């Protein structure tokens, strides 16, 4: 970091201990800190803004209500009425991913969702909920998920493994998508911002040239905000679709 011309786009993802308990043991890292901040902000905002329970909401309460309605519509659209049982689950996931992504857009903040272990843990949580609820609700009929209706029996030996692999690939694609979007976006942002500094070191002409990456950085920042919100949305939509599969197996 001493050399200002050296750009290190990966440095922002380093996990550092803040408090560690014993050698090589559990430690409270910056990632954990930002997870706590994320959950704290969501809880504080939702609790404080809905405290008054005004019939005619003020702006702060309105935002909470809109978030609620947005996710409620998304869940009931893709998973139906029976899926509303899982509304708290989907809402928590959506809010966590959204706020964690948005936190990542603030300079010097750590982006929790840029680590695949976090997104994979979230995806496995979804996966576990789908499997456990699917078997609990439908019993062995849940396995019909792997047997599409209207397929002749002699093709089944081929179709069933394909469906099985397709099912197993869901948590991976769910986690990789979120992590890759956030990671790639942040690296791109850092690299373009680094160009400004590097070009600026070349004197007057350099500063003129640095205008281009500066404009680019501004544009990418806007794009990143869009991606941050959209990936949270995609994560929540796919979660409710998978939950729909658990409720109604068989396509």
């Amino acid at each position, binding site marked *: 970091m001493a050399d200002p011309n050296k750009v290190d786009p990966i440095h922002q993802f380093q996990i550092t201990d803040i408090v560690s308990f014993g050698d090589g043991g559990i430690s409270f890292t910056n990632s954990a800190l930002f997870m706590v901040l994320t959950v704290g902000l969501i809880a504080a905002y939702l609790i404080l803004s809905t405290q008054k329970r005004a019939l005619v909401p003020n702006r702060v309460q309105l935002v909470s209500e809109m978030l609620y309605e947005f996710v409620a519509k998304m869940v009931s659209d893709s998973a139906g009425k029976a899926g509303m049982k899982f509304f708290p689950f989907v809402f928590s996931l959506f809010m966590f991913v959204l706020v964690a992504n948005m936190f990542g857009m603030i300079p010097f903040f750590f982006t929790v969702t840029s680590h695949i272990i976090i997104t994979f843990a979230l995806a496995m949580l979804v996966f576990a909920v789908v499997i456990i609820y699917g078997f609990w609700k439908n019993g062995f009929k849940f396995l019909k998920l792997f047997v599409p209706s209207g397929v002749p029996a002699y093709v089944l030996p081929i179709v069933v493994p*394909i469906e099985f692999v397709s099912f*197993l690939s869901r948590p991976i694609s769910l986690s990789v998508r979120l992590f890759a979007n956030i990671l790639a976006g942040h690296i791109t942002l850092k690299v373009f911002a680094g160009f400004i500094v590097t070009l600026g070191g070349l004197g007057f002409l350099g500063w003129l040239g640095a205008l281009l990456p500066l404009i680019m950085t501004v544009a990418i920042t806007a794009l990143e905000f869009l991606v941050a919100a959209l990936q949270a949305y995609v994560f929540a939509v796919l979660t409710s679709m998978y939950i729909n599969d658990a409720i109604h197996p068989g396509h």
Partner: protein
Amino acid sequence: MTESRGTKRPSSDGKPGPLTSDLAARIKRAQVEADVPGDADIAATNRDMSGLSRGLRLGSEFIAAILVGAGLGYLLDLWLKTSPWLLLVMLLVGFAAGVLNVVRSTAEMNRAAPPPTDAMRVPDDAEDE
């Protein structure tokens, strides 16, 4: 539904006050307004993001299935000591599952954001940009 209520109520309690009928009209207008931009917003976001987000989504769906297939085959090979046959078979199965994933998510996307019925109103150039 709003309309029937709005027209019935003033006549039933005998005073078709301009205030009540105005309120019904306003509620109806607000509902129409609240419905349309919401849906249009989501559809617009889906279309706007089509390039990056669709590409990444389809790519990740495809690659994840191949990785899972190959990994499953590798583990089965280790277990049954049939290396490398199951790896090869499962790689192909994973490939097929990837194609299936891509087909499914494309169908989903098209269902989520169908081509607008008033598509002709938008000039072709504007959409291509």
